[in-house]
């Protein structure tokens, strides 16, 4: 099983060897998709894969350590009422999470592919994309 998570750190939690512990203690594979951490804390987008129990325990461990954990779906949101399906976001998204449906020409947002990089936020003319982390 795979799960994409958005982690947010306060300064204390930034110093913990959390990726090491996730790998060593919970038997998870950790793929760091994005990290922005400095002295005042930061955020990290990771993909963990492993057994469902392992992932559950890993998330428990992170929360105990004071790390904020949210599934990526809660990281970036598109307001479908606002989206005009223009496509301005399509060519800036590094992971192809935003694509054109060839039939309807609607712009499809595939949250599974999103790594919450935020590049599309200020590229969207009606401001339909929102980053929540």
């Amino acid at each position, binding site marked *: 099983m795979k799960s994409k998570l958005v982690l947010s750190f306060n300064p204390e939690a930034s110093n913990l060897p959390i990726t090491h512990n996730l790998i060593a203690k919970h038997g998870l594979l950790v793929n760091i998709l994005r990290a922005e951490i400095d002295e005042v804390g930061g955020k990290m987008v990771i993909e963990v894969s492993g057994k469902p129990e392992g992932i559950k325990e890993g998330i428990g461990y992170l929360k105990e350590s004071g790390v904020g954990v949210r599934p990526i779906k809660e990281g970036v949101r598109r307001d479908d009422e606002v989206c005009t399906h*223009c496509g301005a976001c399509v060519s*800036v998204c590094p992971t192809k999470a935003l694509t054109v449906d060839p039939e309807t020409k609607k712009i499809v947002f595939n949250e599974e592919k999103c790594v919450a990089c935020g590049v599309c936020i200020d590229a969207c003319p*009606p401001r339909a994309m929102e980053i929540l982390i």
Partner: protein
Amino acid sequence: MKQARRSNAKAGRGKSFGEIRARADEGNAVVMTAMEFKEYVRANGAGKAAKEVDIVTTGTFGAMCSSGAYFNVGHSDPPMKIQKAWLDGVPAYAGLAAVDLFLGATELDETNNMTHGGAHVIEDLVRGKAVRLRATAHGTDCYPLREMDTYVSLKTMNQAVLMSPRNAYQNYVAATNSSGKTLYTYMGKLLPEFGNATYSCAGELSPLLNDPYYRTIGIGSRIFLGGGEGFVVWEGTQFNPGVARTPRGVPKRPAGSLALMGDLKQMDPEYVKGLTFTRYGSSLGIGIGVPVPVVDENMANACSVTNDKIVTGLFDYAQQRRARPVLRDVTYEELNSGEIEVKGKAVPTSSLSSLYKAMRICEVLKERIVKGKFKMTEPVEKLPLDRPLVTLDVRTEKEAMK
């Protein structure tokens, strides 16, 4: 009627605008969306299409910077000759009599964050919202009031009219960026080192690309505008029909454009949208639909044009000059494929105009015509084919008069 029309078409004389309109009035016109018509011609040829089809509906939805609206907000008591006015913080031009205001789409909120402008105020009004009107005046004997702070909405105004000097561009350029930093432009966010390319035209669905020589679209044409009805009132500004064209006559660069007017009170927020181009400012996203009568086989040919036959130029916006060199010509088919090649590199593309909404508009307009709710009008004056485009240069008074 049907018989007569068919034999006229067969004789190569086509059908007149009046005949087509009469058929539409009787509910007998054959109406197709631009998408359907192109398919029909592919399968049956332009000759048959000219005989069988009366009207093709075209549409576009995109950022149209040269848009605006004027309002008559009514007289106050005591009356006021408004000299300066702000609608939700966005300056409106008040140099028109006492209580007529003009609000431009790209006028920015004076808080200067460049994210809120006239276009957003126009959308809010169309949504039925109230906006704050602040106004100041010198005060005169006939108009003594000097200050006003109130709310207005479309319900409280006498007239609220969209009036756009330049909309519905016939073709537009594509943009990319060779520099090492991200550029924020009216063509959207352009990533460094040819990181992406953007374009802003509905291609084969776009009204003026289906009538490249303005045979049927002209001053007085009734159109779908922002969900309501409007009219073509003049040639659009920067009208430039003399650009290079393909063998079929389709302009390869921005060419014609339309000046449009329509009642804001009829409009639908679905087709009127305040847009923000980061670090450029605001622009108005507006939906436009134009019915094109298939008067003869030439017109059928024109309306059968497809994206592989429509070309535009790709320009490097890192060149901050009026005349940027063209990097390459590119078709809308290539642009719509999601990727084009630039200097040996595969560059992802983004449309800035909504093809989804353009298709919707073609469908809605077709439905309105079929149901007899939308009456086509014949232009009262043609758009020009011989308009040169001039530039702004530093010149002396004498040079300016030459």
